[in-house]
């Protein structure tokens, strides 16, 4: 009874800290879990009671996000980033090594409740992997000796706050700066320009700049701001999409880490232009280590009169920013799913139209822009639209930040004018032996060496910024398979072709990868891919088959060498299907296997 009233007390405190607002549900659940390590059915019931909402609403949120646990987890919760770039750097070996050191199986909590070790989608540290999260905090550049240290810290039950800081060090690796990052930005200068020249003039500069959404979709930013400004209603919102979930992308992380003032200033300026007083940064859960530093920057800006009430002494200029932390859901990078998540719900993309510029957060007009877009907008307010438009190509003005990782000597952030060739990027980052690039992440496109002359811009190769290099010794199918598994994990489950199609695609690629595929399976993959592209509700499902379709087109030999010569091979593995019978009868003799080869496979741990 005492325990149960303590639970109620804890939850009540946290809920009150969040003002008892159901829109803060995801943040509340994160805080509750921080305190209790997992969310038991009783805990969820209490949260529902305290918020006076239906328990199923709370459960549906708790069940949706990867970083919320409805089964017990260890006091130390370790998740290895499992992007293909982590794999290239040997994360699987390290994962097994740590598990054996801690005597725990992958994905399971040790009997004493001390530790859980599992995997998670790309954590945005591709230039300094293999990476992992411990209780949500980023660990970088893992190697056996670092893991020895970590294992000792865990076994000695040393609190996370006392772990050596160098384990958590995140480098910026800014390799090339152009107009956005190259020139000094004086805090407040964009807001001063905004106040001096007025919203109309700023919009004019935005139009002149030709700035397009830097998240990758490339929608005209000025058009978005104008549409939101013109939308009826007094209450409007500015949302910064820092849910940088596309595997291989980490440029928003560097912007938030080193250029947060520029981003916050762009948001504040947007607030002035569209007439909004409230902004949100939706920071992906994987970047939790930045939460407190960013809050400190916001506070400093308030004290400097750059945020909050009467900004720069103008009584009519009120705007504040709140940071909302995600919890492991790639789909929330889609703007309407992001808004749902901001409202405290599970992240299922909305039906569009209506679009967020008229019906966004709480159905109010909302501008959702990428981190880089807000940073560029702040610079444009100071330097002018023509200045920005002087770089780039006809349809793609300005510059683009690329997150370069994979097989190259100098992974990191490269800022280029739009129109740069893939070839030039490869030369600059020291990728001498590339056979292919995964451009714009798994949702983007895979290109082979014949296409390295192509240009990075909306007219040719559009990108949100991910640039992963595969050299000649890599097996392209390892990448394709990694991406197919990623989409299964990240599908929200709302629409049929994505919910089911991603799993079917994964099974087909696994079948080919393990040498059981035939030409028929390749045709099946193409057919399935077309259904997903045409039929899915949102961009996630529509782009999920891209890695398979692109690699079939660009790297047919990677498939050919694995195919069986037979026309058809069953989808199930007969030998594996016999495993249950072998276990029931306790047999492991050669006679219990179909052939010798299977005996070897079956005997593997």
């Amino acid at each position, binding site marked *: 009874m005492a325990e149960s009233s303590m639970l109620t007390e804890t939850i009540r405190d946290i809920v009150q800290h969040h003002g008892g607002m159901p829109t803060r549900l995801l943040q509340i659940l994160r805080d509750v879990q921080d305190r209790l390590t997992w969310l038991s*059915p009783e805990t969820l*019931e209490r949260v529902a009671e305290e918020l006076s909402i*239906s*328990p*199923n609403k709370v*459960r*549906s949120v708790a*069940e*949706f*996000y*990867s970083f919320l646990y409805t089964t017990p987890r260890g006091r130390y919760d370790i998740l290895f980033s499992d992007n293909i770039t982590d794999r290239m750097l040997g994360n699987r070996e390290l994962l097994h090594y740590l598990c054996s050191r801690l005597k725990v199986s992958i994905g399971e909590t040790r009997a004493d409740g001390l530790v859980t070790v599992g995997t998670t989608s790309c954590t945005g540290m591709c230039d300094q992997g293999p990476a992992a999260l411990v209780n949500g905090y980023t660990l970088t550049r893992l190697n056996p000796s670092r893991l020895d240290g970590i294992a000792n810290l865990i076994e000695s039950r040393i609190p996370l706050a006392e772990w050596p800081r160098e384990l958590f060090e995140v480098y910026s690796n800014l390799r090339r700066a152009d107009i956005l990052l190259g020139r000094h930005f004086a805090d407040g200068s964009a807001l001063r320009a905004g106040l001096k020249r007025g919203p109309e003039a700023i919009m004019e500069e935005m139009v002149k700049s030709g700035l397009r959404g830097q998240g990758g979709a490339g929608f005209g930013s000025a058009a978005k701001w104008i549409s939101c400004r013109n939308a009826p209603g007094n209450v409007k919102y500015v949302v910064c999409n820092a849910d940088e979930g596309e595997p291989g992308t980490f440029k928003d992380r560097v912007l938030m880490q080193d250029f947060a003032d520029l981003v916050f200033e762009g948001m504040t300026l947007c607030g002035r232009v569209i007439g909004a007083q409230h902004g949100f940064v939706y920071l992906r859960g994987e970047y939790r280590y930045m939460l407190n530093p960013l809050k400190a920057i916001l506070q400093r800006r308030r004290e400097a009169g750059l945020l909050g009430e009467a900004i720069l002494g103008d009584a009519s200029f009120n705007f504040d920013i709140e940071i909302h932390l995600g919890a492991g*859901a790639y789909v929330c990078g889609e703007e309407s799913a992001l808004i749902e998540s901001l409202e405290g719900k*599970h992240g299922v993309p909305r*039906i569009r*139209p209506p679009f967020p510029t008229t019906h966004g957060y709480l159905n109010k007009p909302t501008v959702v822009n990428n981190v880089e877009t807000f940073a560029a907008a702040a610079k444009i307010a100071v330097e002018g639209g023509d200045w920005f438009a002087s770089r780039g190509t006809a349809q793609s003005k300005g510059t683009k930040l690329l997150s370069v990782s994979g097989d190259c000597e100098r992974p990191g952030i490269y800022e280029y004018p739009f129109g740069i060739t893939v070839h030039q990027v490869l030369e600059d980052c020291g990728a001498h032996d590339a056979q292919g690039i995964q451009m714009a992440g798994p949702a983007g496109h895979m290109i082979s060496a014949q296409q390295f002359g192509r240009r990075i811009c909306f007219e040719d190769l559009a990108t949100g910024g991910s640039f992963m290099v595969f050299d000649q010794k890599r097996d392209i199918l390892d990448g394709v398979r990694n991406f197919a598994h990623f989409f*299964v*994990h*990240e*599908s*929200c*489950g*709302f*629409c*049929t*072709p994505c*919910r*089911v*199609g*991603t*799993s*079917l695609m994964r*099974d087909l690629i696994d079948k080919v990868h393990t040498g059981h595929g035939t030409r028929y399976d390749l045709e099946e993959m193409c*057919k*399935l891919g*077309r*259904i997903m592209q*045409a*039929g*899915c*509700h949102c961009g996630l499902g529509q782009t999920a088959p891209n890695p398979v379709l692109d690699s079939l087109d660009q790297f047919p030999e990677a498939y050919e060498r694995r195919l069986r010569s037979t026309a058809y091979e069953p*989808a*199930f593995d007969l030998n594996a299907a016999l495993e249950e019978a072998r276990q029931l009868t306790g047999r492991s003799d050669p006679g219990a296997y179909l052939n010798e080869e299977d005996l070897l496979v079956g005997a593997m741990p």
Partner: protein
Amino acid sequence: MSGEPSFTLDGQQIPFQEGQTVMQAALEAGVYIPHLCFNPEFTPHGSCRVCLVKVNNRMQAACTTPAAGGQTVQSETEELREIRRGILQMLFVEGNHVCPACEKSGACQLQAVAYYVGMLAPHFKHFYPRRPVDASHPDAVIDFNRCIMCELCVRASRDVDGKNIFAVEGRGIQAHLVVNTPSGQLGATGFSLHDKAAQVCPTGSILTKHRGYDIPIGQRLYDRKPINVVGDVAQLPDSQGGRRHD
């Protein structure tokens, strides 16, 4: 030809009123576009994707796309039939649908739409998920094996019955229908056969107990005529083999 706006659907002029979707206007004009999660009595959901059509050459769900004057909509093309067939096949392999052993066979909207789009076999690899059957309620049984995640029962119970008995939990392929009680059992809820939620399921997931095979196989709703002629099971009165308890 002035006055009422219209669009063309497979070459036929379809008039519509402002605010209607392509689906609503088509149904009103008596033209069938196959669908499962759409039910004219509810706000469109857009999740099953069976009603995909090409609107001005772009793939859209007919149930969520606003009708606009002059639109060219394609529905009965081989390309769309093939995509719809694929989506139906996905629904069949995702759950456990054993038509010959299902009481709903012959009056099942899922089965009827599958026949309508020319699906004769599930084609894809079966997932064979392990899902329970809930027979805890005195008057109804829920077989989760047949659930296709259309959320019609969720919407009906929440928006019409005001009971909020059903919900979807989980993500991706793990997403599944649940009953909103600590035990997860339907018997512990205030569910009644007179609820709207009892009458909207397009499959045999929610079945009435104590009345099996009232109408013999061969004389059932879709046994003689296809769904585009008969209409949705949930829209027809009980006397015609439908779900509506008038």
